[in-house]
């Protein structure tokens, strides 16, 4: 770990100003990922601006019927919020499928979006990694890539975004509000994270100095027909090999609206808009689900030890769609995986 200075911001403007005054500095929320990365020397910020105590921890109704999730609200407080449980149970499920209670108690909503890949090579300074050191090469291609991506990858990087929460968010499509040196702006969630392309060192579309202040969920929460399915190498406290978030609106057996997003498969939470279109107006049958699942993975590319993810993702999509259509899951279910 490299030495660093530290300050605690009093308000958003103060935080943005403080960060702008320190080259290479970083915001720190719960620190559940950043501190690990600093210990491994993967991140070496000379200055940290603590934003965890900023007055951004509220979860409150929006005039348009949506719900605002403050950036510094913890993942736990968000998952167990009564509004979230009642109106966005998909989000509740996805958050509870991730990490451990201790981590969720510390991790913030803004920080969840900002967490970095768990690719083995990104963490290991003894191996090349384009994300960590642009131009050094990708060790995961041709190496051990069980945790790596199958969709939207590039020859420069096949890393995945590790979040569960963000997979549900991709399906729920909130707006990300940010503040930066040039003032406030909003980013559609779908545009927040990016694909690796030639520049895997950039995980998202924030510009230097911008700070997430809230996630604004739209009214539609898919509270009746939803599913979050996470498949992993043990039943808790492991990152997803494949996860699927589904939200459906149904009229009888017909799907009238659909959201479908995948985790563990791409550099960003992978929402598939064309698959959603394919679901709309269709009967909720095994045939429909199979066709849509095949469509989602049609362009997937395996890299050896993650080849299985293509078939696993296909099956997981079918299962999650079925569960959502049947309305089996409930907010607050203790999730033990694999059902």
């Amino acid at each position, binding site marked *: *770990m*490299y*030495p660093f200075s530290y300050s605690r911001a009093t308000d958003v403007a103060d935080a943005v100003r403080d960060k702008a005054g320190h080259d290479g500095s970083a915001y720190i929320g719960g620190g559940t990922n950043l501190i690990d990365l600093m210990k491994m*020397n993967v991140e070496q910020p000379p200055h940290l601006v603590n934003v965890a105590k900023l007055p951004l921890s509220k979860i409150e109704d929006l005039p348009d019927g949506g719900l605002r999730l403050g950036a510094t609200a913890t993942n736990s407080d968000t998952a167990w919020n009564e509004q979230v449980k009642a109106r966005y149970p998909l989000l509740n499920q996805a958050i509870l499928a991730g990490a451990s209670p201790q981590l969720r108690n510390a991790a913030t909503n803004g920080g969840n979006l900002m967490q970095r890949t*768990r690719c*083995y*090579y990104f*963490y*290991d*300074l*003894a*191996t090349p990694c384009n994300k960590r050191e642009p131009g050094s090469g990708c*060790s995961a291609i*041709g*190496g*051990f890539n*069980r*945790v790596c991506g199958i969709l939207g990858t590039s020859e420069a990087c096949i890393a995945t975004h590790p979040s569960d929460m963000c997979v549900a968010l991709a399906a729920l499509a909130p707006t990300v509000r940010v503040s930066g040196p040039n003032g406030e702006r909003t980013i559609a969630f779908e545009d927040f994270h990016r694909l690796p392309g030639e520049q895997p060192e950039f995980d998202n579309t924030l510009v230097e100095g911008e700070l997430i202040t809230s996630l604004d969920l739209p009214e539609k929460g898919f509270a009746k027909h939803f599913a979050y399915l996470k*498949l992993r*190498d*043990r*039943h*808790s*406290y*492991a*990152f997803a*090999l494949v996860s699927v978030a589904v939200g459906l609106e149904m009229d009888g057996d017909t799907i009238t609206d659909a959201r479908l997003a995948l985790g563990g498969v791409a550099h960003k939470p992978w929402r598939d808009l064309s698959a959603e279109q394919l679901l709309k107006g269709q009967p909720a049958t095994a045939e429909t689900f199979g066709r849509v699942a095949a469509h989602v993975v049609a362009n997937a590319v395996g890299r050896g030890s993650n080849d*299985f993810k293509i*078939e*696993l993702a296909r*099956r*997981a999509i*079918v*299962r999650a769609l079925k569960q959502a259509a049947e309305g089996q899951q409930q907010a607050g279910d203790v999730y*033990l*995986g*694999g*059902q």
Partner: protein
Amino acid sequence: MSQTNHIGKAPSRVDGPLKVAGAAHYSGEFNVPNLAYGYVVSSPITKGKILKVHADEVRALPGVLEVFSHENVPYLAWFDKSYKDQIAPGGSPFRPLHAPDITFNQQPVALVVADTFELARYAAALLRIDYEQQEHETNLETKRTEGYAPGGGKIGFQPPPPPRGKPDQALKDATHSIEAEYAHGAQHHNPMELFTTTVEWRGDGKITAYDKTQGVYNVKNYLMGVFGLGKDDVRVVNQFMGGGFGAGLRPQYSVFMAVLATLELKRSVRVTLTRQQMFSIGHRPNTLQLVKLGTNPDGTLAALQHHALHETSQFEDYTENIVNWSGMLYKCENVKLGYQLAKLDIYSPQDMRAPGAASGNVGLEVAMDEMAYAAGLDPLEFRMRNYADRDQNVDKPFSSKKLRECYQQAAAKFGWETRTQEPRSMRANGKLVGMGMGGGVWDATQVKSAAKALISADGHLTVRSATGENGTGTYTIMTQIAAETLGLPLEAVTFELGDTDQPEAPIQGGSWTAASVGTAVKNACNALGEKILKLAQKPADSPLKDAKYDDVEFVNGQLRLRLDHDQAVVLRDVLQASGETQLEADSSAMPNMVKQNGYSLHSHNVAFAEVEVDEDLGSIKVTRVVSAVAAGRILNQKTARSQVLGSVVWGLGMALMEETVMDHKFGRYVNHNFAEYHIPVNADIPHIDVIFVHEDDDIVNPLGVKGIGEVGMLGVTAAIANAVFHATGKRVRDLPILLDKLL
């Protein structure tokens, strides 16, 4: 029943209150004055040479005290034998910071010592080292035809017995036969506590090393050999341990580094390894096994062949007993066992819970399941038909063996009779259900140990032996043995361990501590008891006047005649009347070779497991495990049960998730952290039933105990693997059984 009858009961850990109050001090918690901190730098390459260590750049940082590497390490012992510890395998032990040669990835190449841990860590990150890289080989698959039989080996290693009968012909003539290859990757012990050594500089060349180790004397002797220290120059202490599992059997490079720095700087130094470095200190080796079985028409085994190949380093022949167990667990006249090593550019493997047996057991017990199916027999019935009443490896009867009762009791508890034989024939909750079983055998060993017993005038007994407490319950069972021997309540007894100022005990491994140290404790207490009897007989009117030691017993704080309980004296009165402030006695214990010579000494177990498998998604949930263990007499029902629970968790981890993955391009383990090296978490662990089948055995040792730390792991992995086959009809022969192997 007397109140001072403690053995076989279930008292809670006597050291529990210390642990929960934070008063049990681990090796990284001895905050001696003026402590400096060392941080180890590990090689990022697998094979080659260090060209230059740019130490001066780092030495210039204020607060950095020194950078040690092969370039400036002082003259140390020259001969290999100085570096050989109690269980060093054949070959040349690794010498840290000895030469510029790199022989494995993450080899420690430098130690940066600074005034603070943070500075040492930072300086270590800045240290530039130039390497010349050479081609390496870390893939066992490339060495399939280059295996060799090791010449010697470490203590306890037994080369496989020569073939018996006509194993090839019998296999050819068998009614049914199977042949299959089994594999598992490297696994690391991953105790929660990192390897840490705090070395206190006592001045004048004398040191005390608070070291995470399973053998304080083993470390002391190593340090004396390597650093040329005298007996009185070095004391090694380890009173508590956050898990060992074999990782602490050999002196680790953390203690070498900390002692080196302390002696050179003449200042106390602490060295703590990182979690990543915990993957550079030995492991259960990547192993390939080939098993061939054949049966007669009546379902008895006609032939059994078991061959194993595993990796070792370039510098040591690490050995473990993998296949020998297959020659004794079942009755078979035609047996051929083979064992080979292959050298790779890795660090030497190291004993890890049930070393060898855990690996070989998977091969044998999964093959037995395959054989049962091929012969059309229920897997349990198949084992019953091949029950071994004698150890055919040595052609001797077992001193005791209640494996049959283990089978019966565990099967009944599990409900094995509800199982239908056909794979994929059972379903529940929309999932495939599978039931499987596996059994195992482990050594019941006693090794020479010593103990000292002291009693104060107020009747408080203190017993000391330099054994270890790696969480197994040593403090508690030794307290029970001592208290029962001298008829005292547990509160009147203190057992102290883990200090080379105490009488010598062996490394804490091999499941031998209860038998070995327990017997020494009992002997020391009896030696003290004889002295107490003599004192009691001093008064002319003593009711015990003419009694011999065998005629008396210590019960409820009294010393009395066995045959006339009214002839008694109160222990404390005797001590106080004697005018002595303290009585003490030393004793040691050795196995009784004359008594044991005609017997095979082993513990046994069986595990039954149930799994649910989601067929579409491949996910496996273990829903129940029943484990039955026959290990002689159980000293403490509670701590023994906890050990078996932990063993089941280990077996489950080996079956379903544990694997250290090597990227052969780099020759480096890629998942060297707790996030990606998966060990079971609570959500993975089902309901576990533990059954102890009592064995009366006065041959193994006077206490009749066989040890419980390792045997409980056996059978569990195979039981789960066999249950997965029963559920799905898919036979996965390379562990761990990850979900993609079922897709």
